[in-house]
């Protein structure tokens, strides 16, 4: 079990993790663009979603949108 960053086996294992994280990020960004009202400025949410792994998109989905808008 000795891995280098170019090792294909490593990417076979963590590839799906990266893909799921990307889907989550893209979904959150799409929801952000579509949302009419957000709590706080949209560009801040965009940074949070892209920079903060997993928790960023989740925080946006939970707290970012106003349901009445």
């Amino acid at each position, binding site marked *: *079990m000795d891995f280098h960053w170019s090792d294909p086996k490593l990417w076979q294992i963590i590839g799906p993790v990266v893909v799921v994280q990307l889907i*989550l990020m893209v*979904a959150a960004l799409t929801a952000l663009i579509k949302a009419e009202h957000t709590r706080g400025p949209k560009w801040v949410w965009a940074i949070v979603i892209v920079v903060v792994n997993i928790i960023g998109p989740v925080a946006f989905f939970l707290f970012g*949108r106003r*349901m009445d808008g």
Partner: protein
Amino acid sequence: MRGLAAMLGKEWLELARSWKWLWVPLVFILLGIMQPVSYYFLPQLLDAAGNLPEGAVISIPLPSGGEILAGTLEQYGIFGALIIALSFMGAVSQERNTGTGALILVKPVSPAAFVLSKWLAMAALVAASLAAGYAASWYYTVVLIGPVAVGNAMAGAALYALWLLVVGSSALMFSALWKSPAAAAFSALGTFAALALLTSLFPRQLAWSPGRLPAASRELLLEGAAGSLWPTVAVTALCVIGSVLIAVRAVRAHPAD
């Protein structure tokens, strides 16, 4: 139970519009995969972190498949419960705030159908997310770590499904009782965190408590047996039914702000 079918359609749409059908299962899948993957890479991670003298030999006993799955379920018990409670903390109160609740309840829809449709949507989301995440975790565990006892793994997950359901049901109940969504989420999470803590302090006296579910699931996965669980399961089921009934009463007594 007038209007249940129509209300179910509405709740389904609500889950889709709020993206819950996508992001909740995805987060469960990520939580599930990370457990086996991080254990698998633990030696490399420690190595990369440095600080060890040259030639130091770390031998970490590779955990069994059951241990990894128990760890995954523990994550669901904490972060999964948090997500479920936070997603449904405004289920009823928000509809009161925005006035949709009043609009719906003047139509031929009974309060029972109103609450039950929300509960069914929540239960479906919990079941689907847990199943998807656990399947992903199970797959990775078998590939990277080792075999898993199928029966115990299924039973262990079923206990956590019940745990998430009772937390979600109580979030729904508190959202019908209280105006503030944050207070509803806090009450639901606080109740069950306290219950789990009390049960771990007094395991004998509280053997029937829903707070025993997480520990029982762990025992099942690690030791293969957890004693008689029927009292716990029965009391948990009663808690779920009780939460729904209280929510129905609250909606009937107080349909709008």
